[in-house]
């Protein structure tokens, strides 16, 4: 499979109590297209830092990141990279509280999409419907929805921009087991049927066991600990 995201010699550290604390140490790794990755690691290992760097929310001290062969800082630009190439799903959903579910989904489209507002609305309703949010709920202010529903809205928003790379930070952390499984199923569907690359940072065994590739962040480096092949797919 082709590489979608390539990390080369990424370093990240910060000063803590007068000592330099190294989080990412000359980290290199390649993520392939159409795969569902889970990044595991103990608390404080730098999973969230890694996610923020590869999603363009933060920059590494040194090293290069390439999206489909283009440097995300020098060639694409972080702002464009965030807007056109990736989507992020957060543990706390990060929906805008005064907008409806449908409007939150449209929010992502408005930054990338040239379709007419009417068409965008239709796409938003369809996406939400696909994730079990019917029109009556889609028209509600998001704070009136349950946690699971809000997370589904957040995933729908991530998909609305029609990007190839989706990051998720503990997306099922606040959800019950049944909903968690639903969300994992969606991620699998997205990667296997729609060719999206999903990179999920998680502590959850349930999530990691159902991913294509489990990657462990340890000692500032990424190590593949299990692949689809290992799991016998």
């Amino acid at each position, binding site marked *: 499979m082709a590489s979608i995201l390539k990390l080369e010699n990424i370093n990240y550290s910060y000063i803590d109590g007068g000592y330099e604390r190294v989080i990412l140490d000359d980290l290199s790794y390649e993520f392939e297209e159409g795969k569902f990755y889970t990044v595991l690691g103990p608390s404080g290992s730098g999973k*969230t830092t890694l996610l*923020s760097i590869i*999603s363009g*929310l*933060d920059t590494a001290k040194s090293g290069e990141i390439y999206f489909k062969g283009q440097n995300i800082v020098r060639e694409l630009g972080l*702002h*464009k990279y*965030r*807007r*056109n190439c990736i*989507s*992020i799903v*957060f*543990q*706390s959903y*990060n*929906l*805008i*509280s*005064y*907008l409806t579910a449908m*409007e939150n989904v*449209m*929010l*992502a*489209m*408005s*930054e*990338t999409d040239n379709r007419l507002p009417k068409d965008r609305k239709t796409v938003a309703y369809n996406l939400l419907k696909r994730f079990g949010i019917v029109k009556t709920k889609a028209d509600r*202010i998001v704070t009136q929805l349950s946690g699971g529903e809000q997370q589904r809205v957040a995933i729908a*928003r991530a998909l609305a*921009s029609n990007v190839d790379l989706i990051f998720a*930070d*503990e997306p099922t952390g606040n959800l019950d087991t049944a909903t968690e499984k639903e969300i994992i199923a969606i991620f699998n569907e997205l990667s296997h049927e729609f060719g999206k690359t999903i990179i999920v940072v998680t502590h959850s065994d349930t999530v990691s066991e159902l991913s294509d590739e489990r990657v462990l962040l340890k000692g500032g480096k990424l190590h593949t600990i299990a692949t689809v092949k290992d799991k016998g797919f």
Partner: protein
Amino acid sequence: MNFINRAIKNVTRKYSKSILLVLTFFLIGNLVIIGLGVSNASKSAKILTRKKMRAVVTYKVDYEKVWAYMDSIEDEDERDKFYKDFPSIKLEDVVQFLADDRVKIANALSSSMWYADEKGSLDFVHLNNKREEEMSGSSEQCYYDETGTQVCETYREPYFMIRCNMFPGMIEFEDGGYRIKEGRFYNQEEINEGDPVCVISENLSITNGLGVGDVITLSCGYSSLDTQRAGITAEDLENTFEVIGIYTHNSPLTPDSSNFEWASPYSNPDNMIFMPSTSAYLAQLTSLQKRFDYYSQNQNNYDGDYYLDEDNRPSEENMMKNIDIENATLLLNDPLDVDDFVDDYKGDLSQFVVLDANNEEFKKLAKPLDTLSMYANFIVWLVVINAVVIISLVTALTLKTREYEIGVLLSIGASKLKVIAQFFIELAIVAIIGFSLAVISGSLISKKVGAKVLEYQIASSDLNEDQGYSYDYFDPWSADYTTEISLDDLVAEYEVTISPLIIGEIYIMGLAIVLISVIIPSFMIMRYNPKKILMNTN
């Protein structure tokens, strides 16, 4: 969904916050409207009152300055020198002023009292007052001559006021006080030539059965010891003038006037005769020359230096130099140009002459309005500054609670400028609503507040005692063309109205407040890192 839509949704869905902000802007708007309304009303009242006043500037010798300077001179010779070259207004200056587009017309006046000829061929218009009864034309007058001998001679009352100008047209005729009923006013050519022409009153023409084209005989003096000594004959004093125009006037000298009973014939505006200054000068030339000759031959008794200098002898050649302009008044086209006009020329004037716009009384009367305007402006600025501070703080505090939303927007690729624009539009929407409501209520409140404050200002000033110059009689010597105004005139023009201009100003000011208020939060937003916001939230 673009930032404008988001802004609208934020305002409409977070309505409790929006209502509070609308209320804040409403209160700010009311204070600003009151301030602007009152300040504007004060300015308008001043402008309207100034427009009501004549656009008159007087060019004159500043005698206060002259006397003060003379007091400071200790050397006798220097003082004599100053006397001989006594400050006076110059015709060439008036000509220069007249060339200015802002000047409509100029009066460079000289006046004298004249008599009918020996035959009494021209009768004056009678007032039939007590003075006429008691004086009955002449009386004996005694005085001491230069040798200390008492001399008594018959005094003849002058009948006519000769009002002369160096320019065609006069302010009196320009502003409607006097009007040519028949014929015309004298022209520049007649002034240059000193043609014997005059303009008389309708009543004088009726009294003497005169019409345009007729000739009258006037005497610029009468036979007295003084004229006899100089060998001046009645013929030297008498001159004929062609009546080229007849005027009417609306002068208030009537039996109801306070000075009516003791007014002299020449005080009667009907007995005023207008003619060019040069014509009056030439009419007096023979007597002036004879008087000069007599004085030069008797120099011991008179100012010998002056009369010894042949160049000072009155003649046609030195006519322009010898015509003594008592005062010059300029009528400008626009009363609002008066101050600028004075400012433009005051630097060019010599030390002892001034251009006086007669603004002192106006400025004094306008003081309560100025104070009111100053306070109103002060309030506006105070409110605007406070508004900026308050709204900035509110927005900055709101930002803290909206960090998360900003993080989301930035993480989905919205630019920071669009986030700032959204905040600006949100504030602008509530500001427009708040100010629109304030326009309605403010226009009602500002009228009442403005009236109350003005009332207080007037009551607390001492202007009421000083005002009320009211001349109800005709003053033949007066060349004061300024319009007397009272505080009532100013107050009558004072009306607080919220004009479209003020409404426009308020909206511009409101948007400026919003814009400035967004600047500080904008700096905060520009510093925001989506990672920090979102990771912290998570």
